[in-house]
């Protein structure tokens, strides 16, 4: 907590805070990081396997294989969210399951499931991108900024 806030506290509040800190269960940060690392890594290995599958059996090159791979991974995570498997994985792995692109599918479908009682249009349609909307917005915006920087560097002859 910020020191300015601590200064404004009454002695009673400070005492309570000390008591709370004493009894607070410490978060197993290292364990959580390891879980996230391994589960996230396994998701990426599956993604790599899917991309090799498309390269091997279809006419996709290394550059064009990204699109079908991402689509497949998102679709699979959407199905798994629908069946309730991805939620359990999320509880276990935390960021390991949320950071890869599969977390995007999970965010879309879990919001849709949550609001399905409010109707298809205003419930599902209106809230489907409640969580994933920010991902799309910042993804598109950052892609625009990166493209702009690259274009300028190419024009100036740096790249």
């Amino acid at each position: 907590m910020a020191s300015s806030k601590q200064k404004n506290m009454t002695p009673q509040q400070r005492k309570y805070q000390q008591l709370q800190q004493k009894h607070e269960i410490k978060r197993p940060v290292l364990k959580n990081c390891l879980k996230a690392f391994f589960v996230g890594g396994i998701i990426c290995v599956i993604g790599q396997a899917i991309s090799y599958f498309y390269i091997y059996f279809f006419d996709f090159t290394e550059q064009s294989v990204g699109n079908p791979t991402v689509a497949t991974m998102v679709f699979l995570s959407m199905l798994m969210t629908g069946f309730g498997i991805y939620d359990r994985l999320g509880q276990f792995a935390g960021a390991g399951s949320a950071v890869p692109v599969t977390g995007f599918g999970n965010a879309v479908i879990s919001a849709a499931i949550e609001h399905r009682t409010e109707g298809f249009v205003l419930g599902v349609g209106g809230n489907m991108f409640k969580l994933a909307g920010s991902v799309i917005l910042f993804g598109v915006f950052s892609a625009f900024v990166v493209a702009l920087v690259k274009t300028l560097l190419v024009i100036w002859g740096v790249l």
Partner: protein
Amino acid sequence: MEQRDGNQMKAIHRWILFTCLLILSSCNQTQQVKDSQLALMKTTNPSPIVTEKNKDKSYVKEIEQDVSAFPELYDVSVVKGKKDTLVVYKVKHLHRFKMKKIEKGINKMLEKRYPDENFTISSDYKIFLETVRLDERMKNGNYTHQTAEKRFNEIVKMTKDLK
């Protein structure tokens, strides 16, 4: 509730065990593995290919040796068609950040040493896989020199689509 969770965990463990056994048993087959089946994952070093009939391979071998001399590369395939010569290579993992620089270097070297050749260069895994497949099909006798030339042109077109 706890018992239900315990049963679910047991079921998950059984599934994991079953999947591991399935994967291990699939690896234990005595079937001969083709180079193209593992070309995306391991070094295959395919022999240089010439699609034209009765043409000497030593010239293409020389090109392959020159390209293999680059320390950043670990697997090189060279295919010579009637008009074009395709050079495909795999870049070592930590050098993949400098792909464009490596491509430029190879292009420069090839143009300097073989000014009469028309080179097409690629580091794409798909193109590499297709050259390994072409080599296998030619060795098995599945491809005549004409069909090999046709397939070669298709592969070259694929590299042009990438740019």
